[in-house]
């Protein structure tokens, strides 16, 4: 029996552009089951990242419905979405997006602290250990290499044990070796926590590692 953890019904996204409104997503309907790994692929500008943002509640659909873990994301306000992500989602970006004023350990601890986890720092320490950065906990992002920063970002996403992992081209800014290591880490974290993983990628070999590949073209499912 399929157990959809995420379902989109005629989801649309229109953004204001210089030359008028631009339709980014044009009626996307799909469902992702619990524990599934899904690769979102397609040419640049096809709407992959926007679809991921919609799934994470980082972008609000301008039409249709987005349900995550049974909750209607389109009906939540911004703070409601933040609370929902805090408990259920881990997001990894191509550009890492660590907070530059915080150390690696503090970056990993912050979602746990936001969720009110009492042993946030012990858990953050363990997560950093798990990604091989136990010795760099007091370093600021600017003192870490790109690969190390992405490992911190992975640890941060994994720390709250989210049901949903969303990753937007997590290896896009890394060289081949580092990229491979990060992907191994991402899949092993997913396997360890049994989460659902949705991955935006340009790399065919990465897409092949997913249970299912969804192709987008011009804002629609291809």
């Amino acid at each position, binding site marked *: 029996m399929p157990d959809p953890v995420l379902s989109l019904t005629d989801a649309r996204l229109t953004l204001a552009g210089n030359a008028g409104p631009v339709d980014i997503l044009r009626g996307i309907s799909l469902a992702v089951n619990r524990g599934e790994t899904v690769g979102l692929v397609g040419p640049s500008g096809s709407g992959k*990242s*926007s679809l991921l*943002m919609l799934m*994470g509640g*980082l*972008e*609000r659909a301008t039409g249709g419905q987005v349900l995550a873990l049974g909750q209607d994301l389109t009906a939540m306000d*911004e*703070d409601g979405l*933040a*609370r*929902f*992500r*805090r*408990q259920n989602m881990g*997001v990894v*970006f*191509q*550009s890492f*997006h*660590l*907070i*530059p*004023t*915080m*150390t690696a350990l*503090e970056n990993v*601890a*912050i*979602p746990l*602290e*936001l*969720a009110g986890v*009492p042993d*946030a*720092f012990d858990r953050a320490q363990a997560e950093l250990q798990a990604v091989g950065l136990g010795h760099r906990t007091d370093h*600021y992002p*600017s003192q870490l290499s790109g690969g190390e920063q992405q490992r911190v970002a992975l640890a*941060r996403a994994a720390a*709250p044990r989210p049901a949903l992992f969303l990753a*937007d*081209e997590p290896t*896009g800014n890394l060289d081949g070796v580092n990229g491979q290591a990060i992907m191994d880490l991402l899949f092993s974290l997913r396997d360890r926590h049994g989460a659902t993983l949705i991955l935006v990628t340009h790399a065919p070999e990465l897409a092949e590692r997913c249970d299912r590949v969804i192709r987008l073209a011009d804002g629609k499912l291809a």
Partner: protein
Amino acid sequence: MSLAYRIARRELRGGIRGFRVFLACLALGVAAIAGVGTLRAGIQSGLADQGAIILGGDAEMRFTYRAADATELAHIAAISTTHSEVYDFRSMAVIDGDETLTQVKAVDAAWPLTGAAVLEPAIPVAQALAETGGLPGAIMDPVLIERLGLTVGDSFRLGTQDFRLTAALIREPDSASAGFTLGPRSVVRTSALANSGLLAPGALFETRYRMTLPAGADLAALETEAETKFRDKGMRWTDSRNAAPGIERFVGQIGSFLVLVGLAGLAVGGVGISAAIRSYLDGKTATIATLKTLGASGGLIFRTYLVQTAILAALGIAIGVALGAAIPLLAAPLIESSLPFPADIRLSPMALIEAAFYGALSALIFTLIPLARTETIRPAALYRGGTGTRGWPRKRWLAALAALATLLIVTATLASGIPELALGTAGGILAALAVLALSATALRALARRLARHTRGRPALRAAIAAIGGPQSDAIPVILSLGLGLSVLAAVGQIDWNLRRAIATDLPTRAPAFFFVDIQPDQIGPFLDRMTADPAVTETETAPMLRGVITRINGRPAREVAGDHWVVRGDRGITYAATPGEKTRITEGQFWPEDYSGDAQISFAAEEGAELGLKLGDRITTNILGRDITATITSFREVDFSNAGIGFVMTLNPSALAGAPHTHIATVYAPPEAEAAILKDVTKTWPNITAIRIREAVDRVAEALSAIATATAWAAAGTLLTGFIVLIGAAAAGERARIYEAAILKTLGATRARILASFALRAALLGAAAGLVAVVAGGIAGWAVLTFVMEGDYVFEPLSALGIVLGGILATLLAGLAFAGRSLAVPPAQVLRAQE
């Protein structure tokens, strides 16, 4: 047209959006200096143009405790076309049931020789001072009229003479030349005082002979002639070239001080100027790297951005000069009418040039290092990303910076005319900025240590992390706010401690009254009266004469002692057979009780040391026109701090035998007994003048409070510049905040939590700036009170709390002004833009 200029012009096509803080900081600092300079020039020009009116004549000869003798009067008549004689002294204005101190001006029919007195009702002076209803007429300062509850037509008494009040003295033309007075003015005819019992021999009064001179009279020559003939007889000369030297000196000093505070404002603004240029050049790294890739030299790059900075600085300076000139000009009618002396506020090119010069120099000083760093940006920055304007520039630029800073300090020192004050202020500003920068660095270190103790409180921890981590605002915030807040804190501490000293210390340490003009035959009954009064705890009396020290060891005193206060004017002199119980002789020996040989002096030890005097030195003093030369045979300690009786010079009694003199007395009594003593003394001995120490101290406190207010306003100006710098820093940090908010939202932070974190960060920085300012201001206050005022210092918490709260409010306002957008922008929009 040079290539650097052409490139600079193309670069500036984008407009000046990123330079608002740069322009505001520079314009504000320049405007403050130009405004103060314009005001100072206006007052100085007013004093110069209307010198004759302020003085009450083209020239004046002044004598202490005597009228001019026949020779002097003949000289006055010979050199002048007309002249007027004015007596000036303190007395008690008495009505039934009340009495108060007044500064009496007794005039002849020629007064006022120049200018016009404004009376209410508007009647001529001659009519106002004429006999009315059997009593001579008198005019009074409205403050005095109100204090005594009089109305025109009422009578009052000076000494034993009754007068009828005929008008209020709204404007006294020659008031500015009188200097500091304790009582409001009364004006009467000298002839009406004949039966008053005032102006008796030995009484304390001054006479002023104002003269109008023939057209084209050579004032310098006339001064030299009068000085040569009469200086040794105690004559002092003033003329319209410098009619109110006290005011002119005061205005000059306050003006110079405020210009220096304006420079402090520029220094604070410099933080914003520097930050704006750095941020602009950071954004230009790619352009610079590209230009270098295409073959541009480091020198060309430096010149290109120097030209841009110069164009912007010229714009900022022009705005500042325009504001600094326009505001005083627009407010001129208001300012001129509210000043007690003439001012003629108009465009003063020199003041504007001075302000523009300081502005240009400051702009160069604060932009030189970021500009010099552009030389070291490498083309590789294009590929590696990041900003290239960090690190130390070449040594020659550091040397140039030191040279420019020295030029600024030297110019400010020379232009101020008071090098000690200028150097002291410049040193103080530099030291304060260094202390503030060190404190900010220490705060960052502290924040990093504290971060681990704030776990579990994410809003607080994010705030602490932002203060201690990279891209911290701690240094710009504490530098920009700290200086203004430190000055305000110091003013608050000093002001409160002075008030406390006046309110609590004074009654226990100082006498309630100074009584002057006690005639020799009155001193016995006066002492009996005080001794019999149970409320009086102590009475001290001493005979007093006034004299001018004219020579030291045969040489003119001014040559030996310069401008020391002891030789500047006339001094109180006393005589005594014994040193007195409280006197401590520090050197030499006091004369025997029955000594009647050559004149001897016991000199105040501290002042003697300052004048370089030693035992055996001979001092010539002119007392009532007669020279007395005496030998210093001892030095003694004199405490001038408790308002008791203290004389710089005590002579042996026989040295002053026969010289007309009066006695002074200090009476110690609790405040509740003061009124009864005053009433009784003025009733029994109408010629005796009582000076209530409390009122005298209040007048001094008022004057100090005015200076404190001026300083506080100046500090507020610095604070305003600091606030603009804060706004600039907040604006510059807006992108970083938006980014941070987007990440935090992605990780599950609500907007309230993010806002709380931003607010906490601002409040913590503001509180830190306030605390540093309280410590710095407290130390400055302690130093001023302990070493300059020789008083006690007690920390005052209330104004300190105000300073900390002010710091918090300023940073909160500036920080939260830009928080709205960071909360409103959807995270996807921000994060996508960063990908």
